[in-house]
C-alpha cells in the first residue's frame, strides 16, 4: 500500500473504491470468475415439496388397457394427458391394436380411447377420450435434463393400480443423454433419436407411456418400452425426451399430421391391391394385420424391395392397422398419383413408391 503523503481525503464525487494499481487486474479477474461461478450454480428458487409435486402430477397419468394378455405380452400400459380435452400421449405398441382401448383416469373414470394418430419412428401414439377440464402436461413447456438430473417416473408398471388407485412413482437420476445403439437389431425399436438413459428401474411391463418428470413436476419425457440389448442381454431403462415428441404430437392433435379421411373423396379410378401385385394374408380376423403374403412376379410391387411377411403400416403417410383399412386407403388414391407404402420388417421401416403405368389406369 502506498504510504506517501499524496493520499488524500475522498471527495464526494470520487468513486468509493480506490484500489492500488497492482491489485486492480487480479481483483477484476476475481470478480469476473466469481460472478461466472454464481451464474453456473443451479437456480435457487424455493423447491416445491415432493408430496405436492406427486399429488399434482398423478392425475395427469392414465391407465390404458387393450390387446394382449398372453405370455410376456401384457394387455396394459400407461399414458399421459397432453390436453384438457383428453388427448393422451403413449407408446405405439401392440396394446393399441384393438378397437377397444380403455383409458382409466386417476379418479377411476373409464373412457373408450380412440387412436387418432401414431408415428412408429418416434414410438409414439396419440389417443383421444371424450372428456374435458382434465389436468395435463404442456408438451411445449417441457424441461430438458442432463446426466445427474433427479427424476420421478410415473406409470402403472405391473398394472398394480386399478380403478381410482393412483399410478406408481419411482425415483432416480438421468445417467446419460445419448442416442440408442444404432447398429441393426441391437434394440428392438425403430427409434433412433435421443434418449435419457435412466438410473431407475422404470421400464417394466406396463410402464411404457408413463411420464418422466424432474423433482418440480416438469415433464422431461415419456417412459419407453422394454428394450433388451441383444449383444449383452441387459435391459435398458430409458425415456424419450418430450421435445423429440412435441411437434409430431401437436401435429397429430391439430390434425395436420395427416389429412383427415373425410376430406378425401373417392376418385373414379383408384389404386387396388391387384394393381400393385401385393397379396395380403387372408382377412379372416375381425382385425387382420396387413401382412404381405406374396408378391406377384412381374407386378409393380415385384420391382420394389417388398417381401412376404412385411407388415404394411402407412399408405401415403396414413396409418393402416388392418387389411380392410389398407384396401379402404387404396380406394381413395387416384391411380394417376404415385403410391407410397411404408412397411415394417423386423425393426426396420422401409418405404417404397409405385407408379401405375399409363396403360394400367384403364383396367380396374
Amino acid at each position, binding site marked *: 500500500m*502506498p504510504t*506517501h503523503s*499524496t*493520499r488524500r481525503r475522498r471527495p464526494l464525487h*470520487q*468513486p468509493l*473504491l*480506490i*484500489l*492500488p*494499481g*497492482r*491489485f*486492480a*487486474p*487480479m481483483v*477484476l*479477474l*476475481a470478480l*469476473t*470468475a*466469481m460472478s*461466472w*461461478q454464481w451464474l*453456473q450454480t443451479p437456480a435457487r428458487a424455493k423447491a416445491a415439496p*415432493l*408430496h405436492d*409435486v*406427486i399429488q399434482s402430477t*398423478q392425475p395427469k397419468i392414465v391407465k390404458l388397457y387393450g390387446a394382449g*394378455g*398372453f*405370455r*410376456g405380452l*401384457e*394387455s396394459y400400459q400407461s399414458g399421459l394427458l397432453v390436453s384438457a380435452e383428453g388427448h393422451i400421449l403413449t407408446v405405439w405398441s401392440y396394446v393399441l391394436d384393438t378397437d377397444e382401448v380403455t383409458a382409466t383416469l386417476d379418479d*377411476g373414470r373409464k373412457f373408450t380411447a380412440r387412436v387418432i394418430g401414431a408415428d412408429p419412428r418416434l414410438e409414439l401414439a396419440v389417443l383421444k377420450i371424450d372428456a374435458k377440464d382434465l389436468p395435463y402436461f404442456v408438451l411445449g413447456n417441457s424441461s430438458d435434463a442432463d446426466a445427474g438430473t433427479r427424476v420421478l417416473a410415473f406409470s402403472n*408398471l*405391473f*398394472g*398394480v*393400480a*386399478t*380403478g*381410482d*388407485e*393412483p399410478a*406408481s*412413482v*419411482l*425415483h432416480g437420476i438421468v445417467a446419460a443423454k445419448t442416442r440408442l445403439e444404432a447398429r441393426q437389431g441391437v434394440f428392438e425399436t425403430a427409434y433412433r433419436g435421443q434418449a435419457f438413459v435412466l438410473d*431407475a*428401474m*422404470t421400464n*417394466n*411391463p406396463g410402464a411404457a407411456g408413463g411420464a418422466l418428470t424432474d423433482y418440480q413436476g416438469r415433464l422431461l419425457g415419456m417412459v419407453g418400452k*422394454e428394450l433388451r440389448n441383444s449383444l449383452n*442381454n441387459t*435391459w435398458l431403462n430409458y425415456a424419450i425426451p418430450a421435445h423429440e415428441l412435441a411437434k409430431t404430437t401437436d401435429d397429430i392433435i391439430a390434425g395436420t399430421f395427416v389429412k383427415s379421411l373425410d376430406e378425401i373423396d373417392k376418385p373414379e379410378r383408384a389404386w387396388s391391391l391387384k394393381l400393385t401385385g401385393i397379396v395380403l394374408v387372408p382377412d379372416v380376423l375381425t382385425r387382420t394385420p396387413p401382412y404381405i403374403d406374396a408378391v406377384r412376379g412381374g407386378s409393380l410391387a415385384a420391382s420394389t424391395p417388398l417381401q412376404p411377411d412385411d407388415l404394411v403400416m402407412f399408405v401415403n403417410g396414413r396409418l393402416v392397422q388392418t387389411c380392410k383399412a389398407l384396401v379402404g386407403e387404396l380406394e381413395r388414391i387416384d391411380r394417376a398419383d404415385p403410391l407410397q407404402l411404408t412397411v415394417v420388417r423386423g425393426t426396420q421401416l422401409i418405404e417404397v413408391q409405385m407408379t401405375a403405368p399409363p396403360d394400367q389406369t384403364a383396367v380396374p
Partner: protein
Amino acid sequence: MRISSVPSQPGTPRLQMFKRFRASIPFAAALFCSFLAPRVGTAVEVTPEVQAAEAARIEVLAKICPSVLAVQSPDGQGGGSGVVISPDGYALSNFHVTKPCGDWMRCGMADGRAYDAVIVGVDPVGDVALIKLLGRTDFPFAEMGDSDKVQVGDWAFAIGNPFLLATDFTPTVSYGMISGVHRYQYPAGTLLEYADCIQTDAAINPGNSGGPLFNATGQLIGINGRGSFEKRGRVNVGVGYAISINQIKHFLGHLKSGRILDHATLGALVSTHEDGRVLVSDILEDSDAYRRGLRYDDELVRFGNRPIRTVNAFKNALGIYPKGWRVPLSYRRDGETYDISVRLAGVHSTEELMAKLQNAPTPEPPQPDKAPGPDKQPAPGEPQPDGSQPDPSQPKTPRGPTPPILPGAPKTQAMPDHVKALYATRHGFANYYFNQLERDRVWTNARRRGDLSSLTGEWLLSGQLTMGGEAEFRLTDTTARCTLPGGEVQIDASGSLAGVLDPTGSGGLLAALHQWRRLLVTGPDGMGDVTYLGTLPTGTISKGMTRPADSDALADVLVAASSGVESRFYFDPQSGDLLGMELFSQADGDPCELRFADWQELDGRWFPRRLQVRYGNEIYGEFQFTKVELSPAVEK
C-alpha cells in the same frame, strides 16, 4: 477504480504501470483458476443441506439397524430377515421365511451375535410370523409407526439380508421412495395375500423377506415380503411390497396367542356394477352380515372406516382383519343408507387351514411349467396375474446363494432344552406354550381387581331396569334365576347350556351370567378349556356398535369352551377389569352380549353395578344394581 497517483518515474510512466500489472498476473491467474477448479474435475463441493440430510440418515440408521435380524433355520439353510419389536425379544418376520425353518430358528443381529428363537404364532394368509428370541430381556427393538400416515413420495429404508450375503449378520440397507400405498397383491391360492400393502422402490430382494421397512425417522411401517418380478427373474426391478404395520397391529394379540391364524371374510361377495357402484353379488344366509340385514344387490358404501368405491378397495379394507373381528359397515338400498356392525368369520375352517399348511411345504407362488420341488430359498415372488411365465429362453438369472450343506449335519436339528421349555404342541396352534403364558397373564391381571374365589355361595344382584321395573338375579354353582317384570325364570346350569336361551329374547342371559360367575370364582382352571384368543376392539361388546373399529381400544379376550357353549371374556389390558362377555349358545347364531360398567368397591374388590344386555340387533335390557350380595360357601 482509480490508480493512486504515485509519482511516476520521469520518462517511463507506462512502463512502470505495465511492470506492476505483469507482476500481478500469476497471482491473478491463480486466483482465477481457483474459482474454476471445481468445474474442472477435482472434488465437488457438497452443499450443507446434502451433508445434513446424510448425517440425519446415518443417525437414524444407527438407531434402527440394531433391531434387524438375519433369520436362519438351525442348520443354516435358507432364511430371511426379521425385526425385534419389544425388549423381551418378540420379533416379526414372514410366514414363508419361518415355515421352512420349522419351530425354532437362529437369528443374527447387527452386532454379530446370534440368538435362538422359537416360533410363537403364524398368519399364513397374511404371511406374517411372530417369533421370540431367547437370552436377553433388553433386546434393541423397533418403534412401530402408523402406516396410514405413509404417503407416496416419502423416503424409506428396507433393511435385511438380501441374497443372504451377510455372513456376519450385518444388515444391508437399501433406500428408496414409497411408490404406492393401499396396494393389493393377489394371493397364491388363498395364502400370502398382500392386502393394503405398501409399494416401494427401495430394493427388496430374495432374503429381504420378513425384514423391516422403516420411514425416514426410523419408525417401523411395514414388513417386506413380496416383489413384482417377470422377465428379469427373481431380482428386484423397482417394485417391492411390504405388509403394513397397521395390519400387523390388528393381528399382534392373536399372534401372541400362539395360534395358526385365519383372516376375515364378510360371508358375501361384491362386484362392480357397470355404473361403478360396488354391489353385493352373493351372500351366505348363515353369515353375520345377513343376520344384520345385508342382502343381495345392496350397494356397499363404507367398510371398516373406509369409503368403498372399487372391489380392490373392499379387498384392501377386509384383508387387514383377523377372523372374529367386528367391523362397521354401511350399505345403501333404495336410496336409504343403513349402518351395521358385522362379525367377520374365518376364510377357512380350521381343518382347511391345517390341510393347506401340510400340502404347501414352501409357500412359493404356483409355477405351472416347473415341477414343484423342495426349495429352501426365501422367495418373495408374485404369481403372474394372467398365469404367464417368464420366457424360458431368457438367461437364467442368479438366485440367492445357497449355503452349502455340511456333510454329516442332520437336516433338522433337535430343539435344544432351553427352547423346548418355551414350546408346546396343540392342534391348531403354532406354539401352545405362549397361549398358556398369555392366559395366565390376563387372569393374574384380572385378579388384581379382586379375588372372588371364596365366594362360592349364592350371588344376589338386584336393582332396576332403566326402562322401568325391578330386576333380580340369583346365581349359584348349579342354577341361575332371574325375576323380571315379565316373570321369573330359572335354568339348571349343571349340565349343558347349549340352546338355553332363557329368558326369552335375551339369547341366553342366564347362561351367560352363570358362566361369568363361574369364571370369577373358579378362574380359567375351573372352566374346562380356556384359551387366550388375542385382542379385539372393546367396541365389539359396547353400546356404540357402529363406531369405527380402529378408534377402539383393544381388549384381551379369553375363550372358554365349557358346558357345551363358547364364552368370550373381554378384559381391559391395563386395569384388568372384566369389561364384558359374549355367550355363543349356538354355533351359527348371534351371541348374548354383556357389557359391565359403573365399577365400585365391594369389600375390597371392584365389582360392576351396571349391566347392558344385547342380543342380535336389539338391546335386551340395561340393569342398574342397587344391591349386590356375594356369599361365601354355605356351611352345611
